[in-house]
């Protein structure tokens, strides 16, 4: 079957709206509800976070949601249980995002196999470096048609970006600045220079910008330099607090109509 990420980009290659949330947050069994509500209200792509006890690439919002999700009892086993039937009613591409250790303990091959059975299209594993992926994991991921998404940052050299471009099958995740995850407000001059530099490289891969994208304004700004953007911390903050999670997701998505 054709990978849903590839299919998405052939249909639409501008203003792709991608949302990230932590599985098991705010409540253990919200995963399916959040995914279906997001799809119904305009998400083009959804990233489901697998919480880890020591998320070094994340800022306070995702640290906190991960901690609560783990306290709630979230595990990779349980996540696969929750997602077992997801393809009966959800058709947007789904990506699992998390740190390498829990995936390794689950077993890489086992993990990829489960993803493929359920209909997961890709993974983002920030602490799985390009070189290790290439030498140890690439063939397994390919066997199960999983796109592993790589990050680039303001610090990534042109040579390395070219290499990542060659290895990417889904899209390239452009980290908007040198930072951990979390909203930072406006896009500054240095970021714009970086966005422009990457645009001029004419890469073969599609690009989504993430980290620090928080509202319609920053979203559209990012979309000017990419095929779309990813919102994580700001979305998680918005589904925190009183009210049903469905209502809160709808409220948040309304801003992007």
């Amino acid at each position, binding site marked *: 079957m054709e990978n849903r990420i590839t299919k998405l980009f052939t249909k639409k290659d501008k203003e792709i709206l991608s949302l990230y949330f932590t599985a098991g947050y705010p409540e253990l069994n919200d995963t399916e509800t959040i995914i279906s509500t997001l799809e119904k209200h305009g998400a083009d792509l959804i990233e489901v976070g697998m919480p880890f006890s020591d998320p070094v690439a994340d800022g306070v919002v995702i640290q906190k949601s991960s901690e609560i999700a783990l306290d709630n009892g979230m595990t990779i086993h349980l996540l696969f249980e929750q997602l077992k039937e997801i393809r009966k009613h959800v058709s947007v591409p789904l990506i699992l995002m998390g740190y390498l250790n829990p995936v390794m303990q689950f077993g890489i091959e086992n993990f990829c196999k489960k993803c493929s059975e359920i209909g997961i299209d890709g993974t983002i594993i920030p602490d799985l470096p390009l070189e290790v992926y290439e030498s140890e994991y690439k063939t397994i991921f390919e066997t199960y048609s999983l796109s592993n998404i790589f990050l680039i940052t303001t*610090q990534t050299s042109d040579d390395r970006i070219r290499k990542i471009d060659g290895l990417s099958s889904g899209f390239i995740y452009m980290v908007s600045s040198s930072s951990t995850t979390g909203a930072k407000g406006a896009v500054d001059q240095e970021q714009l220079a970086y966005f422009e530099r990457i645009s001029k490289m004419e890469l073969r891969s599609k690009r989504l910008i993430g980290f620090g994208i928080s509202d319609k304004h920053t979203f559209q700004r990012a979309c000017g330099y990419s095929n779309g953007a990813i919102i994580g911390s700001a979305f998680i903050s918005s589904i925190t607090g009183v009210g049903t999670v469905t209502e809160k997701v709808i409220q948040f998505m309304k801003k992007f109509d």
Partner: protein
Amino acid sequence: MNYQSDDKGYYGMFGGAFIPEMMHQNIDQLQNSYIDIIESKSFKDEFKLLLQDYAGRPSPLYYSDRLSDHYKTHIYLKREDLNHTGSHKINNTIGQILLAKRLGKTRIIAETGAGQHGVATATVCARAGLECIVYMGAVDVARQSPNVEKMKMLGAEVRAVQSGSKTLKDATNEAIRDWINNPVDTHYIIGSVVGPHPYPDMVARFQSVISEEIRIQLKLKVGRETPDYVIACVGGGSNAAGSFYHFLHEPSVKLIAVEAAGLGVETGESAATTQLGKPGILHGSRSLLMQTADGQVIEPYSISAGLDYPGIGPMHANLFTTQRAQFLNATDTEALEAALYLSQKEGIIPALESAHALAALNKIEFKPDDIVVVNVSGRGDKDMETFL
């Protein structure tokens, strides 16, 4: 068998560099330059001179009559507690600050558990005139307060970390996050043989002066360079790595690593990684790690802040797996007793961490003519509140 790292930073199956892309530039630069820099003549000369005139090396190798009597063997204490700032940690921070200068970095960050590495980092930053920020778990800020005061007096900023178990692991997470957010001007001085390649090998090299001196000192004292035993405590494993370094490929030397058992290995309140851990990835390298079946890191426990860590460096994971080193452990109580014993028999108050190494003397059957070296990695000033 080779017990050193290969050129990709692997010790057998352990090591490597499992880092997010945000750290790639800095780690890549270190990997590509650290050997050239630290093996250069100008670096070596400067490092050596500072170890001698600033840190007070060589540290004495002291023959302990009374411990030798008690254990009916020959016991030498390697006195890292007599170094400037009170522990072996200064060896590494002097090396890394010289490296940071050569890399043109102007801002230094560090994590600390017991505060010894934090003090050693604040010290070299003061001397080098560089900004210094030390991350320390809130629990450790409370239990090692003399070191917090020292860091402040030395001009460093101490940031108390409130996440997780509020100890060394969490301080390390926070230091990594700082580096991700400040990739251009900042160097991260990691305090042990942990972290992504090249840190484990680089820190081991800076600490290897300990075993280099032991060889020379033993030769003068007993006419041979190699002891029968070298005993050291293991948090991340830097003092042990330094004590073992020049004996790794001497099969006649038994290497004894002592972990913190906390309340006891089986109690769920322990930091004995080799007994409780499985291969896993934390803080940038593959090593042994205390974790749940789902791969979540288990919060460790030890009375000693410097040993209260859920992993060990990849060199030690390999020494354990290949059985080149023997791993023992000591409980809180055993360590406290050993600290008291050394204080009252020899007039040396050891750090709580080092007391774990001393406690292991009770667990080994020595022969009367054995030569035993125990590394006293630090002094106990910081632990007075716990002792009393």
